[in-house]
């Protein structure tokens, strides 16, 4: 790690840890170890970028939604994702890094976003699977993060969680309705589950034993529950939901263990996980190129808004 804890004032460090242990939130102007700040800069910006990039697979279906009802819902959901991105950018900016800088790091590939959005969404059932599984996995993670130690991040999470459960329910509704439909519709739903199941489980990150940032993040209560625990919560919730509507998760080894009260599953294909993180997923290049283009296309809007604001200011001064 670039910011060694040994370089920090040990008294301040101990006071800081005591606050964390006492569940006192850290606020932007409070003293914090540089490594804590850097860890949050990485995590919150990655979270913000994920919300924004996550609009792309869904935006793909706005013009082709099967009904006016589903189109309105999809647009409301995408608007929420934009909002969540903005809450998170604001929380991230309190750490002393500008919005511009965060976006630049994304465009340069220095900042990541959730790898799950590097998978394509070729069918309408993918809108169901994304809402149900991807938002579902995000909710499990975000509910836990409502208790994160950094105040602005925790507050953004509370707001996001209030809005997010509609997303998961609309996705599950799409899947349930497809499963009540024709043979082709049921196949489409199962196919979407087959493609999104593993990427959703990967959203929780590597095993605790392989997670580079986990133990320090847990000690500082940036993360409140481990990757594997959160993943298990998601699996335990989701498999019965799949079974209820006649879907089957694509894992021959998935079975209920009455002793542990948890589902057992096969291990994730970690080669695929690392490969997508390294930029070799099906849509990595497309997602980033699209974001860069949208940002560039909006440049004149920002310039015009700024010019207008300056003109108004000058008018006030003359008057």
């Amino acid at each position: 790690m670039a910011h060694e804890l040994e370089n920090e004032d040990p008294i301040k460090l101990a006071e800081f840890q005591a606050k964390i242990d006492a569940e006192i939130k850290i606020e932007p102007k409070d003293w914090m170890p540089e490594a804590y700040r850097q860890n949050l800069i990485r995590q919150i910006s990655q979270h913000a970028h994920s919300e924004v990039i996550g609009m792309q697979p869904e935006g793909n279906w706005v013009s082709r939604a099967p009904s006016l009802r589903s189109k309105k819902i999809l647009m409301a959901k995408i608007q929420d994702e934009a909002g969540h991105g903005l809450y998170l950018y604001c929380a991230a900016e309190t750490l002393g890094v500008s919005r511009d800088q965060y976006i630049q790091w994304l465009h340069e590939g220095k900042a990541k976003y959730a790898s799950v959005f590097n998978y394509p969404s070729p069918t309408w059932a993918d809108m169901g699977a994304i809402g149900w599984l991807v938002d579902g996995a995000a909710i499990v993670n975000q509910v836990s993060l409502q208790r994160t130690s950094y105040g602005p991040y925790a507050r953004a999470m509370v707001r996001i969680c209030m809005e997010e459960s509609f997303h998961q329910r609309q996705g599950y509704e799409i899947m349930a309705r497809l499963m009540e439909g024709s043979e082709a519709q049921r196949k489409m739903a199962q196919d979407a589950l087959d493609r999104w199941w593993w990427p959703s489980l990967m959203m929780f990150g590597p095993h605790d034993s392989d997670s580079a940032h986990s133990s320090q993040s847990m000690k500082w209560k940036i993360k409140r529950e481990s990757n594997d625990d959160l993943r298990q919560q998601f699996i335990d919730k989701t498999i019965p939901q799949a079974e209820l509507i006649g879907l089957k998760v694509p894992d021959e080894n998935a079975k209920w263990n009455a002793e542990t009260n948890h589902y057992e599953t096969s291990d994730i294909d970690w080669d695929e996980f690392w490969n997508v993180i390294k930029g070799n997923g099906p849509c990595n290049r497309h997602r980033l190129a699209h974001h860069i283009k949208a940002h560039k296309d909006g440049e004149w809007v920002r310039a015009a808004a700024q010019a207008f604001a300056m003109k108004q200011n000058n008018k006030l001064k003359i008057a």
Partner: protein
Amino acid sequence: MEDNQGTLWEVFIQPKAGRPYKHAGSLHAYDKSMAMEAARDLYTRRGEGSALWLVKAEDIVASQPEDMEAFFDPANDKAYRHPTFYTMPEGSKHI
């Protein structure tokens, strides 16, 4: 040209008439009317409020955490400001 995405504004929402305004979050905008529209779209999509206040973040005066103890100290030794400080006669009611 600098592409700074505008000024930082803090957003306060009054959940309903008669209630105090509460900080909801922040946003970027270039002027007051743009800030107001963005605040509506960003923070009140589900009937969260009946009124909004917007303040430029740079105009907010905030206490400093490092001076907190000394700054709030004058209140610490004035227990007589609290109702529990006073002894009421045995049997007194509604007070």
